[in-house]
């Protein structure tokens, strides 16, 4: 009170509290702090009122061009999808939002049952045995999956396809510097031939460019070499494509954001992490499990905690503590609202739109679809302009697409320079028309190509 508008202490309160403690001033409690370090000047501006801070943030927000402001085709791991109104109403209720890890399960059944349901729903979607309660995001889940494979196999080489999302590969490479795991990046086509001596093969399906990949073959190759198969996937794709558990994947990871979670410039999101039952004791992260109370009533607790840092410390399967439970709950609310039919419909809309759009773009002069095979709900558009220039020219027209950097490996440009076009159920006919128009115009202007 006074300067912190959320503190309830009045001056009278403070005086009474100090008297009971038996000191004159709070400073009397700070003797352990080096004198010269006490009460630093921070050089921070005075506080704002709520009304002022709201206006300030609104000003900042207006400096962005949001996905809803114009035709928008950026996607990949993080997707602009329709979020039913009931999702935030339920998932952001104060009792979920302002609780913490359910250390006292008797007064945390809301969290625990919702997370248990998330695990159950996600397990069905992926056709996997066990799902944990969440990792930070798709990237760290991928890295932790690789670490888990290393622990399980005792091998220190991880083979990852170059068609795995570049952000995941970056995080993987960064994480790998810790335990000094060797990361080998090979194209999808070479994965099956690279299993020897590897802890795991990491494949993404649909891949970063939207291409469908034969995971079964890769899983077989991995298993034949004593390696694990880790599949990176996307939740909506699993509604229409044979799921990872049916393709032979041992560990499945991915980004759960498309399940009702806002894009929010990259987080907070939801790291999906699933594995086969036999591997669960090496799984990272919290897991909710069913049990009973002393009356025999069904209830839920966090279980298998002997894997975790707070019990096992340096022997834990991961250091993760705070996770993304609220995102898991959000995903469960989303899935329960959409149901199997809604989930399929959302997925189907993206696929249908992507294919229709690709057909229109492919016939424009100088344009082609650069995927290596059938694709799902995004595809790679190759033009004579090159991806980066095309992307920048489209921004000028209010259209946002992603230029692909697949071809940049550790800074070296190795191959193509295209754009990726992601469609979802939010893509509209007008969006598609605008893109086709713009690309048609741009692809024709050869001066741009010359200027590169």
């Amino acid at each position, binding site marked *: 009170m006074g300067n912190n508008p959320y503190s309830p202490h009045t001056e009278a309160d403070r005086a009474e509290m100090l008297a009971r403690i038996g000191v004159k001033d*709070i400073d009397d*409690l700070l003797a352990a702090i080096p004198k010269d370090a006490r009460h*630093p000047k921070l050089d921070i501006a005075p506080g704002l009122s709520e009304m002022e801070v709201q206006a300030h943030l609104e*000003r900042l927000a207006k400096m*962005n061009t949001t996905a809803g402001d114009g035709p928008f085709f950026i996607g990949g791991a993080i997707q602009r999808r*329709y979020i039913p109104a009931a999702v935030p109403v339920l998932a952001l*209720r104060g009792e*979920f939002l*302002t609780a913490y*890890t359910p250390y006292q399960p*008797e*007064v945390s059944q*809301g*969290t625990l049952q919702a*997370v248990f349901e998330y695990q159950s*729903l996600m*397990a*069905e979607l992926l056709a996997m045995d066990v799902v944990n309660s*969440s990792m*930070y*995001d798709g*990237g760290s889940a991928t890295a932790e999956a690789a670490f888990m494979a290393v622990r399980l196999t005792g091998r220190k080489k991880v083979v990852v396809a170059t068609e795995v999302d*570049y952000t995941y590969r*970056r995080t993987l490479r960064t*994480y790998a*510097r*810790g335990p*000094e795991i060797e990361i080998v990046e090979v194209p999808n086509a070479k994965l099956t031939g690279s299993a020897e001596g590897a802890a795991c093969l990491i494949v993404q399906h649909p891949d970063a460019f939207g291409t469908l990949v034969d995971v079964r073959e890769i899983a077989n190759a991995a298993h034949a070499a004593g390696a694990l198969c880790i599949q990176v996937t996307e939740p909506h794709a699993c*509604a229409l494509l044979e799921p990872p558990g049916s393709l032979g994947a041992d560990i499945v990871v991915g980004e759960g954001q498309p399940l009702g979670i806002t*894009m929010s*410039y*990259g*987080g907070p999101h939801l790291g999906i992490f699933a594995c086969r039952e036999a591997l669960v004791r090496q799984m990272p992260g919290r897991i909710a499990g*069913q*049990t009973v109370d002393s009356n025999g*009533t*069904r209830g839920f607790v966090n*279980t298998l905690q002997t894997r975790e*840092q707070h019990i096992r410390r340096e022997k834990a399967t991961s*250091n993760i503590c*705070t*996770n*993304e*439970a609220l*995102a898991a*709950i959000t995903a469960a609310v989303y*899935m329960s*609202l959409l149901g199997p039919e*809604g989930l399929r*419909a959302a997925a*189907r*809309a993206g*696929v*249908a739109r992507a*294919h229709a759009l690709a057909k229109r773009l492919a016939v424009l002069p100088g344009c082609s679809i650069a995927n290596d095979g059938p694709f799902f709900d995004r595809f790679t558009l190759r033009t004579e302009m090159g991806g980066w220039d095309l992307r920048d020219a489209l*921004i000028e027209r209010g259209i*946002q697409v992603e230029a692909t*950097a697949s071809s940049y490996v550790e*800074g070296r440009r190795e191959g193509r320079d295209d754009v990726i076009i992601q469609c979802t*159920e939010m893509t509209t006919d007008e969006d598609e028309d605008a893109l086709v128009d713009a690309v048609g115009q741009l692809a024709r202007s050869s001066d741009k190509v010359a200027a590169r």
Partner: protein
Amino acid sequence: MTLRTQLIPDVGAKTPVPALEPLLFELARPGRNGRHVRTNETAEIPDAFQRKTPLRLPELSEPQVVRHYTHLAQLNYSVDTGMYPLGSCTMKYNPKVNDRVAALFADVHPRQSYRTTQGVLALAYELEQLLAKITGMDYVSLQPQAGAQSEFTALLVFKAYHAKRGEAAQRKRIIVPDSAHGTNPASAAMCGYEVTTVKSDARGNVDLDALKSALGPDVAGFMLTNPNTLGLFEERVREVCDAVHAAGALVYGDGANMNALLGVARPGDLGFDCVHINVHKTFSTPHGAGGPGAGPLCVKAHLRPFLPKPWIVREADSSYHYDTAREDRAPAGLGDSIGTIKQRLGNFGVLVRAYTYMKTLGEEGLVETGRDAILSANYLLALLRPAYDVAYERPPMHEFVLSAAKQKKQGASALDISKALLDEGFHSPTVYFPLIVPEAMMIEPTETEPKETLEAFAAAMLRIAERVTTDPASVRDAPKHAPLRRLDEVGAARKPVLRYRGPDSSQGGNPLQPPSAARAEPVP
């Protein structure tokens, strides 16, 4: 209107299941659904790729879903419903305005160009500066998504730093105090380090002699929480840091307890090379039933080259972009950086809330926060001292650790007391941590609890202590008034049930198994 135990109807189980609320699957009926998203179009998917495995998700109407989650929410204890004195977690009030402004940034994709995200970058840039000022550090990475990931990031930075100096191979060990949070040794191990634990001294400080003898040319760093997990300020913090530096190692600051230091002292002035921030603690972002959080890493200039990329650059005209070529897609300028922990700016939606909080408090508000947090902890300790043993007798900072060792002897453990508190309408403190205090109860009231609430909590704790002396069995039997009685955690781990597999899992584990004839609630 809290839920009372019911027999779950229609689940098809031979015997109905008593529970507070059915599972989604138990509420589902084939053919039920809403109409949130629809399409008439068909998807062109080659047959070989099409899903043949049944998609056994529950079908529910929206009204059912709304009731289900409303019921579940009401079963939770939360900061919005009561005092949540979980030590080390800083369960302070989460301002609602922070949530509202965060929604203004919901519809922005992390792969947008810097040209369409100047608001994001301006906010993030200023946030980095605010964090640097508050911690006394020079540079900040916003990428880590929680404290533990920030620890791991920092240790990667340490590794890169030593590598740059040609000492990577040699420096294989990280030292942590025995009072350290579990994430510290876990992060060190994950980063490929061996972990050495040093003990604490009688005043709750790191034992300086033990530390010195553990230090050597094979040590990469020392991880120190200050105030430590006992809630105590490290009395010889500068000597500790000097000793570590003298051995050529680096000092990592675990900033989980930064709430105590807001405007009171800065890690950067005390000898730390870096410190992480749990914005979900110190900066009031909601804990989300377990997460999300965000764990920015603040470092001194000598560690900057190793921070994750990309970095935000501010131009003279107040425009912003990343420091890497072609946005951050071609990290030509990776240099000495460890790489990328999380694309671009980490949990930006959480960071917006933290930024808003700092702008709301301002310098004076931040200072008041640290001081009030300390005041509240000391006041509550004064109220509780008559009945409970205090682990270390010196003024704590923002939290303190009691021992229920006395009560344990009288017949009720720290666990029992924690359950009895639930019956009194309070969340329990953190129990059995830190590990070095027997029957530990770690209490952090935070600055947002009114004095009356602290007093009511103390009264409850004293009533329980009294009950332990007169009727310990009743305390061991708690909770009685929570939604459930004590849960069988041992059984849960022994025979794990980690997902729903239908009423009769022997039947192939189909969660949508239709209701059997034996209904719990027969149609009248």
